[in-house]
């Protein structure tokens, strides 16, 4: 019964976040526009050498996704702060982790949708041919997005009540994401080049370990962060 109630809360929060975002539109359009702009600007910096652009494509793609996702994380708590809704959220009885999981699922859907648009744009801009290993590449994208959203949602809750939250979030988040980004970039790069040296597997295992560790740690720590 408790599990049913908890799951109901998780779904309610994810639905609420996605519905308010879909209706306001400003957030998603801004996130996608930033992602595409970063791809274009890095393209200018690296071009016109087509080989250099292809070599850098995996790294640039993940950086564009990260910078754009930070906007989404900030926004997911801004909606709660606008009219004191965060306090109301805290007044509901029940497990605190449900708030975190609901927001995490909404952010995953949001970032996933952003990647659906930004990745094809990156493939065209950087003249990358779609590899035969594309299903594995999709798996790496999902694992990388999970890592980014897990910590992004967590640190956004921590920084949300600070006046300097826009600055604080990247300062907290980026150093912690280095292992996940490195693994996601290297696995993606190997897969885009056909994974001749069978490197992608090891990097993917690191990404899975990172996601599992931080999914557990953030769920355990969230109650202490949000009640502080």
């Amino acid at each position, binding site marked *: 019964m408790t599990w049913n109630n908890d799951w*109901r809360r998780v779904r309610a929060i994810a*639905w609420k976040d996605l519905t*308010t975002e879909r209706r306001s539109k400003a957030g998603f359009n801004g996130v996608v526009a930033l992602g595409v702009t970063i791809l274009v600007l890095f393209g200018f910096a690296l071009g016109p050498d087509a080989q250099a652009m292809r070599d850098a494509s995996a790294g640039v793609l993940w950086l564009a996704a990260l910078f754009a996702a930070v906007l989404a994380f900030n926004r997911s708590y801004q909606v709660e702060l606008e009219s004191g809704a965060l306090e109301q959220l805290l*007044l509901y*009885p029940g497990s605190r982790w449900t708030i975190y999981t609901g927001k995490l699922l909404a952010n995953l859907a949001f970032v996933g949708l952003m990647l659906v648009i930004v990745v094809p744009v990156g493939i065209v801009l950087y003249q990358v041919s779609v590899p035969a290993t594309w299903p594995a590449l999709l798996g790496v994208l999902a694992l990388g997005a999970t890592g980014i959203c897990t910590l992004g949602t967590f640190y956004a809750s921590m920084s949300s009540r600070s006046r300097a939250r826009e600055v604080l979030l990247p300062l907290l988040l980026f150093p912690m994401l280095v292992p996940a980004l490195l693994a996601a970039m290297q696995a993606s790069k190997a897969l885009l080049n056909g994974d001749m040296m069978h490197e992608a597997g090891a990097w993917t295992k690191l990404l899975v370990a990172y996601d599992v560790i931080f999914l557990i740690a953030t769920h355990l720590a969230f109650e202490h962060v949000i009640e502080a």
Partner: protein
Amino acid sequence: MAEPTSDFAIDAQGVARRFGTRWVLRGVTLRVSPGETVGLLGANGSGKSTLLRICGTLLRPSAGAVNVFGHDVVREADAVRARIGFLTHSPGLYDDLTARENLEFAASMLGIASADVDRALERVELTYAANERVRGFSAGMERRLSVARLLLSKPQVLLLDEPYSNLDAAGIAMMSGIIAELVRGGGAALVVLHELAPAAGILTRTVTIQNGRESTAAGVA
């Protein structure tokens, strides 16, 4: 585990709260019995809302203790939350959701049937705006919707921070009716007020907070 019992709906003993170096509350003792509606008065910055937020688990006391029907607000916060209805100063609504969607979200968070949503909307006379987004609501309509959300949980203790603000005459009568109804059913209410007049008909007594301490406990004629 045995349910804690208490003769008091709210039992605050020596509650102090500090923000930085400034003590806002310096040892408030206040007891509210079931069936009582207590008005909390005081100048701006006197600590009325701080005391209410401590009773509502939104703030922890720096010293002292508060129990709600025998449950400690720090150690048993979840049990306290299940018994209170807290109307905060800000509405806490989502502008891009409709009135009904806001209440359905609250119902999901509370684990109650969404059938209660229509009854709550009817009680605050907002049925006509049920499918409109909150973004277009007046401050008074937002207040009514916040009250409707409060009714969903059928609280035993009402914590109300300036509940009459932004309400017209009909809204004031409705609010007094809702408070009186809940208190008659064995509950209690602690109401922060700037003006006594709107609530005068329903108050059992008033308590004034001055210099971080309760200074007056007066019956209301």
